[in-house]
């Protein structure tokens, strides 16, 4: 072909078309997705992965990392005003009831059904699919970051005392007393004691493990049941005789710190904090920590507490399909594994908990897998009234721990307050 002016012009034109077509080939070019994210370990990782999503799809993802209170306040304001400021929102396990009641987020069942092959739904633990976003049959959020309640314990102290890690609550309580020696600044137990969500959430966990329940079979409050009073009595005694003296004032940070500083021999905690025990910059107990499934009361079914976060699409978002593409992408096998390799501590898929590379990095993954296989995401009732119930229990349980009242009176009073909500 001779290089005539005409041919050159044609070449230039086809080159320009190829370039523009190449750029337009990305399906979400020009779209910006605003994500409101809880400030957990996954948030920074999600922000780091955002440019990769842009490379693959063309959409820009802006991650707004917020503390729990701000996330709830800002997203609620967004829902009420129908402003669609956020397209994607991380949702706590206990918010599902409220989101479903107000249709604040997109119902995801049709989308999940449509793309089930691409998502590989069977690879996601059913307990996470249900508890991290399904309420009353509606899927208001897609599971994103599953946390398992696990037992972290000091292998060196257990070995020195000739004890095996506890498999029942009764053993845990007995071990807690045996391993307490205030003269050596060593305590057998630690949990959240501070008034508010901190103590309420930890006690609800222990309460479920000791056979108690917040609601009765009819779904109404049963705070002062005999089992709950018994479990609160055990919890109080542990605080008074086997916990660090300041534990009644601990929230999650204080509790984790007391364990990392070597004060406490046992602690039940969310699996997301576990990587911190292996970090010599913040932990005095590196190499002396074991992680096991959380104990249950003798004779009770083996179920384990599950918590975590889902990803929801704002019902007022102008980019719902793009938001769904992002959710599918970040929860896909490849990207979710990548996220966890980067330290997100947020598990979701059976395949990633079996993944050799992840297991080599985080030796406690089989414990999380076991917990998810037999997980219970409802020991904290995921109902619209939950925040008020948590508040009532947060005051009642703390008052018992500091000796202001006894378990029965506190729970009787709490029951009266909770009944008014229904």
């Amino acid at each position: 072909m001779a290089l005539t002016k005409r041919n050159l012009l044609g070449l230039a034109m086809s080159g320009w078309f190829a370039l523009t077509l190449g750029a337009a080939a990305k399906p979400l070019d020009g779209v910006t997705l605003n994500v409101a994210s809880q400030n957990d370990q996954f948030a920074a990782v999600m922000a780091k992965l955002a440019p990769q999503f842009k490379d693959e799809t063309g959409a820009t993802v802006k991650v707004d990392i917020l503390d729990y209170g701000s996330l709830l306040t800002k997203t609620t304001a967004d829902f009420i005003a129908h402003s669609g400021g956020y397209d994607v929102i991380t949702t706590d396990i206990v918010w599902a009831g409220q989101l479903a009641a107000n249709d604040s987020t997109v119902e995801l069942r049709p989308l999940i059904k449509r793309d089930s092959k691409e998502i590989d739904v069977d690879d996601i633990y059913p307990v996470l699919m249900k508890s991290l976003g399904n309420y009353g049959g509606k899927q208001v959020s897609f599971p994103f970051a599953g946390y398992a309640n696990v037992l972290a314990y000091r292998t060196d102290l257990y070995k020195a005392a000739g004890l095996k890690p506890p498999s029942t609550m009764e053993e845990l309580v007995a071990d807690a007393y045996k391993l307490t020696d205030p003269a050596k600044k060593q305590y057998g137990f630690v949990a959240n004691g501070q008034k508010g969500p901190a103590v309420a959430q930890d006690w609800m966990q222990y309460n479920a493990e000791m056979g108690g329940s917040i609601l009765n079979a009819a779904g109404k409050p049963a705070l002062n049941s005999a089992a709950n009073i018994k479990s609160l009595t055990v919890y109080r005694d542990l605080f008074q005789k086997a916990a660090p003296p300041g534990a009644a004032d601990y929230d999650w940070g204080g509790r984790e710190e007391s364990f990392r500083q070597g004060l406490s021999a046992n602690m039940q905690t969310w699996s997301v904090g576990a990587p911190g025990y292996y970090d010599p910059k913040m932990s005095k107990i590196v190499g002396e920590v074991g992680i096991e499934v959380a104990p249950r009361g003798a004779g009770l079914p083996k179920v384990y507490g599950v918590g975590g976060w889902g990803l929801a699409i704002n019902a007022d978002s102008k980019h719902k399909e793009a938001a769904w593409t992002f959710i599918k992408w970040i929860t896909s096998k490849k990207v979710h594994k990548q996220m966890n390799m980067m330290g997100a501590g947020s598990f979701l898929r059976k395949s990633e908990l079996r993944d050799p590379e992840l297991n080599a990095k985080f030796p406690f993954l089989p414990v999380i897998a076991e917990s998810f296989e037999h997980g219970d995401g409802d020991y904290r009732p995921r109902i619209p009234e939950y925040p008020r119930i948590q508040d009532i229990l947060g005051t009642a349980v703390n008052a018992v721990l500091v000796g202001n009242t006894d378990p029965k009176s506190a729970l009787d009073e709490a029951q009266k307050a909770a009944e008014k909500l229904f």
Partner: protein
Amino acid sequence: MAAPAALYVLAFGVYPLLRGVGYSLYDYNLLAPRRTHFVGFGNYADLLGDPEMRRALLNTALFTVSAVTVELGLGFLIALALWRDDRFNRICLTLILIPVTITPLAVGLIFKGLLLADYGLVGYWLAQWGISPRGLFASTATALPTLVFVDVWEWTPLTALILLAGLKALPTDLLEAAAVDGATALRRLRQIVLPLMLPAILLALTLRTIDAFRVFDIVFVATAGGPGDATTTLMLLAVKDGLSFFDIGRASAIANAMLLCIAAIAAVYIVLIRGADRRANGR
């Protein structure tokens, strides 16, 4: 000429206030907006019957009275000590103002960290010596007094500064004449300094009372209102109802009740101090 100012006050003062009064008459929750309905004074009646609210009112009153009394007394002593205008006093004044510059939320977190019984820099030793085995914030008896101490630590310098400004504005010739006439220091303080200082005292008293009455930050981070309800304050309840439960009706009712309390206290101050001023200075 006053139109912009009047517009400003209407837009940012009167309008939100009236909206707040309006909201307080409704059962209005942002999480269940479809259930909104008029309840009249129902929210106020609920507050009166709520034991947590009564306890919060008592705690707020105790906190305000103790904190403001100590801050005013201590602030006055500091102002007297720094009255003379020399380089040493100017350096001291700059240094004692440091706590005022720290945001209260950070102050609450710092004291919480310091006073933790198990590994706090101060709390550890208090526990070792048997003074506070569980931590000052973890005991019902000491939590509120400790919060008062934190507030005093942070805000006494401000009252000292206001009172010092009042002292420096006093007519020196009057004080010198009294000294020449043989009036003792105590008599000069009682009969000249204090009466002339009444406007500055009123300012410090009103500012600190309003501020202490709506205390939130340090309580929120240091005790969350606990142990039990030993440090629950009115503002803590209002914020919890408004921003945790999104119960705008109830939160507005608490805020309005607080506004009424503060207005009543300010009115009492003004009447008392004006009376004292009239008696002392014949104004």
